[in-house]
């Protein structure tokens, strides 16, 4: 699994400070390979979300990051963003369109796909998260668990090769959390799961990276 060909994320000495001076990342070195399920754990404010935002070029520094062999900048961005799907922590940020259909169609339409292809992808993505009947539903009429599923569908419709989930179990009740774990287990795509739900990470990931104060403090294989 660990040959050069299948390396999809390469980060070298990534240091990032927010404009207000907060040092969020401090010398991160990280490689991620195709097919891995990586857990990214650490306390609040450790820099997990900041690191994830570097993986699709939302945040940038000089050439410390390479995704699928591409530098996330300029004309590479549309391609990178179609290959890297980020599901944000708060579904109310992720779902910004009036109906589920529009939300799930947003990515594919931005990629410039044709109407029939978009329709097919939306249908498939909603089916994959067992929300087929939700295409006309409005986000504020859905439960947190349902919103989370539609959020996931909203990036699945872009057929990402790397799926990134930021605190996927936040605000879920035990049932919702359980069915989310089952859903993610069934997905055959490279995943990075950030959060502090260790149990969920243990169940879904083979590799756990622990970060604290912007530094990687451990990188271990589990369930091997």
């Amino acid at each position: 699994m660990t040959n050069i060909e299948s390396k999809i994320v390469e980060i070298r000495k990534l240091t990032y400070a927010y404009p207000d001076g907060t040092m969020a990342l401090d010398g991160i070195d990280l490689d991620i390979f195709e097919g891995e399920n990586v857990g990214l754990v650490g306390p609040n404010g450790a820099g997990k979300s900041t690191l994830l935002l570097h993986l699709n070029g939302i945040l940038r520094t000089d050439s410390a990051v390479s995704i699928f062999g591409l530098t996330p900048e300029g004309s590479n961005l549309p391609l990178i963003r179609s290959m890297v799907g980020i599901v944000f922590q708060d579904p109310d940020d992720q779902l910004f369109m009036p109906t589920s259909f529009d939300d799930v169609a947003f990515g594919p339409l931005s990629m410039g796909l044709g109407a029939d292809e978009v329709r097919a992808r939306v249908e498939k993505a909603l089916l994959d998260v067992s929300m087929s009947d939700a295409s006309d539903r409005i986000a504020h009429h859905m439960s947190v668990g349902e919103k989370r599923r539609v959020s996931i569908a909203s990036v699945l419709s872009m057929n990402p090769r790397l799926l990134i989930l930021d605190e996927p179990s936040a605000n879920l009740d035990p049932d919702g959390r359980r069915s989310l774990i089952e859903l993610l287990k069934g997905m055959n795509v490279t995943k990075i799961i950030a959060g502090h739900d260790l149990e969920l990470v243990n169940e879904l990931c083979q590799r756990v990276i622990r970060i604290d104060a912007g530094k990687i403090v451990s990188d271990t294989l589990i369930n091997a």
Partner: protein
Amino acid sequence: MEHHFLDQYSDRDSLIHRLDPRVKAITFFSLVLFVILTPAASFSAFGFYGALLIILIAFSKVPPIFVVRRSLVIIPFVVIVGLFMPFIKGGRSLGNYSLGAVDFSVTYEGVMLFWNIFIKAMLSCISLTVLTSTTRFVDLLKGFETMHLPKLLIMILSFMYRYIYVFIGELMSMRIAKESRSAGGGKRFHLKAIANMVGVFFIRAYERGERVYLAMCSRGFDGTVRTLNRLKLNARDIYFSFSVIALLITIRCFAK
């Protein structure tokens, strides 16, 4: 959470609910237009418009009481604009009254002007209430979008609709948090706390905007919000709009 502040009853099912939102919008706006363009003295025409609305309400299965109550919001405006008309408009006098030192005279033209404003405002308001309570707001926006209303306007309205409940929810939880911590305290203290809350609320709204923008960019947003048109007209829609508009023309031409 279930919220229906803007479009209560719009998620029910009825003949009217199932019509295409564009057809509904055009039909009800035509109704408003006909009402406005009918001379005030055509009393029977207004009666027929009213009857038509009653039939539409009956088909829509929306409680008539709800429609009436919603439409009453227009009354204060009508009163402000129209109430003094009978007294200040010159013309044929219908009667003179005196209240202490002040003399009033009510004129026929003035009364007609008030009636004109009143009946048109009421009927228009009822039409639009029937439209919004039989059409989900999102479908209405979709309809307007395919009818080529300005995209920016549609986008702003759709964000407003999407986030108004999120904001209301945030405000509620802030208020609960404040109230459960502030036992007693003077008026001054409360005002300060509320001012603080408003400030925090604006910062949160701003941050929300930032995060939503990031989420949009992550899915390839490049400045245009794209949607697919999934609306389809069918025969029923055409029949509906043609028959209502034919009725409107008949009323306008023949009722005096």
